[in-house]
């Protein structure tokens, strides 16, 4: 029996109309492994990530996360499989009607019983590692710079310590020094 990978992508193909973006991609990742995908702009990196996040349904192929095929399964199983994944989008995709700390702790505060103070403290502990000032916690995403938004998005992704992290261009929009330190 082969070793179980955390992520198994087989024959993944995506096309928009006649425009074939991904053609039979195979990808295997085990725990604690990290992989950087580099490619020309428009080559399909973001599309691949969207498939892995379960947002885009591929035309062909399978994506197994921790053994669950998120392409060909029912909604509940897919949701459970994706619970352990933190992601950032290329454009940040922060909720602009929520403050920074509400954004970061969105997943936790969604359920009742997580009080405001604890959530704020948690958000603070995370952004301090990302060299963000604590004053921004009460700001809205539109009041932040592009790079700060990006780091808040990263904070949101890592907030509940997911097993798997997908980052779409996490360092674009950051100056080289900030990018390197994080």
């Amino acid at each position: 029996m082969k070793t179980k990978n955390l992520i198994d992508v087989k024959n993944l193909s995506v096309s928009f109309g006649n425009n074939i973006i991904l053609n039979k991609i195979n990808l295997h990742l085990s725990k604690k492994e990290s992989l950087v995908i580099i490619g020309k702009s428009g080559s399909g990196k973001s599309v691949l990530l969207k498939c892995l996040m379960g947002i885009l349904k591929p035309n062909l192929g399978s994506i197994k996360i921790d053994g669950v095929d998120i392409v060909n399964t029912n909604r509940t199983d897919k949701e459970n499989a994706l619970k352990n994944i933190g992601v950032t989008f290329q454009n940040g995709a922060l909720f602009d009607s929520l403050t920074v700390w509400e954004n970061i702790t969105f997943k936790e505060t969604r359920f009742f019983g997580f009080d405001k103070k604890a959530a704020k403290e948690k958000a603070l502990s995370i952004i301090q590692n990302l060299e963000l000032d604590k004053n921004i916690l009460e700001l809205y995403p539109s009041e932040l710079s592009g790079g700060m938004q990006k780091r808040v998005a990263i904070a949101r992704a890592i907030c509940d310590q997911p097993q798997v992290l997908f980052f779409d261009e996490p360092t674009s929009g950051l100056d080289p020094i900030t990018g390197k330190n994080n």
Partner: protein
Amino acid sequence: MIKIFNLIGKLSLSTFENLGKITLFFFMSFFWLFKKPFYFKQFLSQFLDIAFYSLPVVGLTTFFSGMVLALQTFSGFDNFNDEGTISKIVLTSILRELGPVLAGLMVCGRVGAKMAAEIATMRVSNQIDALETLSTRPMQFLISTRLLASIIAVPFLVLVGNIIGVFGGFIVATFKLDLNPILYMISTIDNFNSIDLIQGLIKALVFGIIISIISCYFGFNASGGAEGVGRATTISVVTASTLILTSTYFITALFI
């Protein structure tokens, strides 16, 4: 001129094309309403936005409609300008038709446009995708809460609008037309028919569904940046107000 017809044709075509999908969308968001968790905070903020902040505009429009109804009835039917006739015409028109339709159109312009723009923006900036990745079903979080809020808020607005409208008629009848206030009030109460009220409230309920579902549907399926947001807003206001004005006919026909 041809351009205008072209546009109307295109709009109605896509409306029919979307009808099936919209029905499905409605059932989906209704279904998720009964599944845990219920996002109370979302619901409450939407409810306040619709019910409370629409009160001034709904109140103002129904008040003036009540006044103009009394005036028109008085000047239009020379032989019937007694308290009984005027109060009856004001009351039934407001309860059955003007209250719900005016409130519906006002909410459609105010809230429907906002819902469509808000959700479309969330769509084109990946915020809806982000919700999904944070283990939150966008349908349940964004749409079901808005549906429930408007199902409750629009009938509430209509109820308040009805009272204000009838009061507007009373004001004109007594202060401008010199009718007897006591007689006018008594005949208003005499002419009150709960079926009229129910008819209006059913309309309000249907309008609430139309406004939220149409706006959310076009917002949810928006694409293509700022222009897409604008398009979603326009088409949802046009579609929802058209549906309001057509559905009121069919609901009325059910009651005849």
